[in-house]
């Protein structure tokens, strides 16, 4: 599973960070950081939930 974030769409509202805190982090500089671009399968449900609840559809999950 590979995660990509379209930073032109992302609004740094950190909804993904709630769904998958070990994968996404919004820091005090106001930017989103992807902590693991290829997380393990055990995180699939969290990552899918992050992608489905991102208000700007900035997250794509492949594979």
């Amino acid at each position, binding site marked *: 599973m590979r995660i990509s974030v379209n930073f032109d769409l992302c609004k740094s509202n950190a909804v993904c*960070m709630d769904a998958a805190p070990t994968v996404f982090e*919004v820091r005090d500089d106001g930017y989103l950081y992807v902590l693991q671009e290829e997380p393990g399968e055990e995180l699939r449900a969290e990552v899918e939930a992050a992608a*489905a609840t991102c208000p700007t559809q900035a997250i794509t999950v492949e594979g």
Partner: protein
Amino acid sequence: MDSIAVVGASLAGLRAVETLRRLGFAGRLTLIGAEAHLPYDRPPLSKELLSGEWDRDRVVLRRAPYDELDLELLLGFRATALDVATRTVTLHDGRTVAADGIVLATGAAPRTLPGLPTLDGIVTLRTLDDCMVLRGAMERGARICVIGAGFIGAEVAATARSRGLDVTVLEALDAPMVRGVGTRIGASFAALHRANGVDLRTGVRVEAVEGDGRVERVRLAGGDVVACDVLLVAVGAAPSTGWLEGSGLTLDDGVVCDETLLAAPGVVAAGDIARWPNPTFGGESMRIEHWTNAAEQGMHAATRLLAEDGAAPAFATVPFVWSDQFGVKIQSAGRFSAADRMEVVHGSIDEHRFVAIFERHGRVSGVLGCSEPRRVMQYRRLIGAGTPFAEALTAVE
């Protein structure tokens, strides 16, 4: 389960059909929606689309192709009845759709004010078409009057100011967004709006709306008169359950579901329409009109429909909402009211950059932040975990 019909083709309905396919449901899947448009996103209707920053093709809710979902898509079809026993949906043209599973996702629609006259220029804001009407008026330089300073009224006022338009907001309570943020923080938003040129009048009562064919003015108790070209009525929304009257489902300000979002055997509900006991808050009966909830419940409802009855998980959540006004990112999560103890744990309310948390029964029950997304989300997790308030005060750096 061989066939599923989803009624309501917006956020909750779309996330439900996407999840059904992701979980491997290969049967007939019908998505029924009253609007002619493919599912689109509502938050930009009071923000980027209304301001003109975005074009209308940018508000689609799904960028991936629809073919992959293999849907029977019935757009422009209004459901008029549901027979729960046979799980049959009747559409406005008389045709019927029967299925083994039904997802109810018809959302909510604006409330109106009793006694309003029928005049051109009196509008509400819920749909893409509503937005384009209001945007057209704004492009022509209309003077806007808004009744109701809830989130949507406040956002429209901010958008009108970003276009340099005159805007007056009339609110019966003492501050804007009081239901969402309480009076102390509401007062800081009142100041923000006034500093940006919104003519915000709180504690007022509308006595009459007048005009000759078209709205011209609003008369307030006490004699003040507000002249306007467009009057936006933004006094909240009510769940779209009219078509379910007589279906046998329990309706009580929403479709009443169990903790798994099941409303009847084979029938689930999701989004603005659904009322359910939320285990995160001791089973308090809730109906939530926020974006994230509709997305989460759409996914959960799909999972529920495919689960064995005994094995279905409850839907537990900490409600979350955001709003953007004058460059301030307002976010709140959980439950709180003006009556609860509040502590500002970061920043300052009057500088519109802060985090405040709320206490109920000794635990942190709510958080409200301005332009502090990371901390708000960390508190959202602490709320979900039932963290004691004393511990929460210092838990987030």
